[in-house]
């Protein structure tokens, strides 16, 4: 009898926790403008750092990230013809609370894809977890040397434990 009560209480607590950390789905287009600095470049290996800023525009009904601004810095490597990217982003909501993301991916410029996960948050996003997949879909031509412009689709879900 006591065990049954304990199990029941445990299940109730689990249910409360699950609802408290409800997933908030998002599906947004992130367009950005940035600069890249090449550390070294050759046929065998290229390494560059990049820095870009931009904004999210929600796709469809999942409005979560609409109007959030974003700043990313990262590293691009091309080794043995394989290009990979990794780095971090700060996402800022209209109230000034932020989500910190780490990302990684692979693929050619203008067509790379990967994942980005939340690792920290402030204010309303304190304790955030989750993340999603991203895919660059703009093979755009740079308007000025040393710069790049692009857009990617980012979709997934965040959870906030509060």
């Amino acid at each position: 009898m006591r065990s049954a009560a304990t199990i029941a209480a445990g299940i109730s607590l689990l249910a409360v926790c699950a609802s408290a950390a409800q997933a908030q789905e998002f599906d947004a287009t992130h367009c950005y403008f940035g600069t890249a600095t090449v550390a070294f470049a050759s046929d065998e290996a290229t390494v560059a750092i990049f820095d870009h800023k931009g904004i999210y525009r929600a796709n469809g009904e999942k409005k979560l990230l609409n109007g959030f601004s974003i700043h990313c810095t990262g590293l691009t490597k091309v080794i043995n013809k394989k290009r990979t990217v990794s780095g971090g982003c700060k996402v800022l909501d209209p109230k000034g609370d932020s989500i910190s993301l780490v990302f990684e991916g692979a693929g050619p410029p203008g067509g790379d894809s990967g994942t980005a996960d939340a690792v920290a948050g402030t204010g309303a996003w304190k304790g955030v977890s989750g993340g999603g997949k991203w895919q660059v879909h703009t093979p755009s031509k740079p308007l000025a040397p040393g710069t790049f412009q692009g857009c990617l689709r980012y979709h997934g879900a965040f959870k906030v434990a509060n």
Partner: protein
Amino acid sequence: MHGQAARNGEDPAWNAKNLAVVAGGIIALGAGLSGPALAQESPLDFTVCRSGAINFLEQSKEATVLAIDISGVVSVANDRRFENMTSRCFGVGSLINGKRVGTGYCKFLDSDGDTNLLAYTASADKPGEGTWQYVHGTGKWAGIKGTGSYHAVTRGKPIAAGTLQSCNRVTAKFSLPKK
């Protein structure tokens, strides 16, 4: 009969000569009204999202004067030729004693390296809105004509001091010379 007709301005010779002049004028006027041979106007509707620098020359309650240099990409367009075009805009704006003024130019570059250039004027009373017109084009955009309007659809909180992030929806009608 002939004399009477001449007095009334009905001399057949006079009429034939002047009708030709008048007709020629009407044809010329018609050509002038339609301009150089342009294709039919096409509707244009796209969203461009940008980020860049915003620098304030003056920023006070009474007077604000600023300049922008922002770049981005056309992410959604009703005409595929405009999709993924990169964009860079230079502009200046001011708000002095409640009077808002803003003007600038935006250059769009497609994947073939062809460009078009538009001049915009911000609305005096609706922040984030304005009108624009094409002023130049190269390659496939040479001779482009068109006018339209724009309005901000998202404006994020600046991700860093001195920066600006926003998306604008742009609508217009444009035409290109017939080839």
